[in-house]
């Protein structure tokens, strides 16, 4: 107990003194109270399990799509490493989950997104272990679900393939940061204005910053999507409109 206290006494001033150099756009380690940290883990778990089985199914029954699984995972890797400037004068990064959601469905990206977030939390101090559930929920559950839904809806209403992909990826990206704002507001309500007041504050930071980045993410996703559709006979995808 004493040792624990000593460590605590050593660490806290260190945290205060050291300038914060790690700028992560996910919720930072330790910034969600235990109740919320655990709740988001529980809510996210079913999507991860479903995603894991879907990935396994694809690898087993359609082995020529394994390469495309690798591409969509690598795409998340690349885009979430790109911190881009935004009109608000701060930086954030795209998520890259839209491409995979459009090609493989949302839960596959829940599983792949978790792996990327875990990597960043452990090796880059970007995001965190305690906030992994919440960050996975925003980036790898809601983001892909919105991307997939918007893409399908766009196709149904007769939009061109590339336009539907653009809208799906851009809105999926934006929704991730709206959810991040909601998660932070729920955990840190404003003492006078409550959850809503603090939601407005977090939204103005995360969501507004994200608007131009969402556009960039949409554009980059369409570029890779265009390239992939060139190779649809090499084990790639036959989209409904391409047949």
């Amino acid at each position: 107990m004493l040792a624990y206290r000593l460590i605590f006494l050593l660490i806290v001033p260190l945290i205060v003194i050291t300038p914060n150099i790690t700028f992560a756009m996910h919720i930072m380690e330790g910034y969600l109270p235990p109740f919320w940290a655990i709740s988001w883990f529980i809510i996210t778990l079913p999507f991860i399990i479903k995603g894991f089985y879907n990935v396994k199914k694809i690898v087993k029954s359609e082995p020529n799509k394994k390469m495309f699984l690798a591409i969509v995972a690598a795409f998340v890797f690349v885009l979430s490493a790109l911190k881009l400037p935004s009109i608000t004068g701060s930086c954030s990064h795209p998520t890259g989950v839209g491409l995979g959601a459009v090609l493989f469905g949302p839960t596959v990206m829940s599983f792949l997104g978790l792996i990327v977030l875990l990597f960043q939390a452990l090796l880059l101090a970007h995001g965190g272990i305690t906030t992994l559930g919440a960050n996975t929920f925003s980036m790898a559950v809601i983001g892909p679900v919105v991307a997939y839904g918007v893409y399908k809806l766009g196709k149904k209403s007769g939009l061109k393939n590339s336009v539907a992909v653009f809208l799906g990826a851009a809105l999926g990206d934006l929704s991730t940061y709206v959810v991040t704002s909601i998660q932070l507001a729920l955990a840190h309500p404003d003492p006078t204005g409550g959850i809503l007041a603090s939601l407005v504050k977090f939204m103005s930071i995360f969501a507004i910053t994200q608007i131009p980045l969402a556009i960039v993410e949409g554009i980059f996703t369409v570029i890779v999507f265009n390239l992939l559709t060139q190779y649809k006979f090499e084990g790639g995808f036959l989209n409904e409109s391409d047949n």
Partner: protein
Amino acid sequence: MKVTTKNLILLFIGILVVLLPMILNGNAEFGGADGMAEVVINKVSPDYKPWFEPFWEPPSSEIESMLFAIQASIGTGIIAYIMGYLKGKKNSAYNR
């Protein structure tokens, strides 16, 4: 329009969207959005102390940017490798 032309135009627009904030808002700091979120959290609940620390943090922003560069290049490498493989496969199928 050829796919390559289309993609080049898209890439150009993408780069423009990235550059625009720096041209329009040149004096800004361009710090991380999460750093700003931290400020808000401290304002909203001043008593809140993060209850968990990362096991390891990159010792400097230089090392952090190296790690991010590695992350991006691993991803790009995988994508480029597979794209090249597919292109070769497609070409050899046509030339048979």
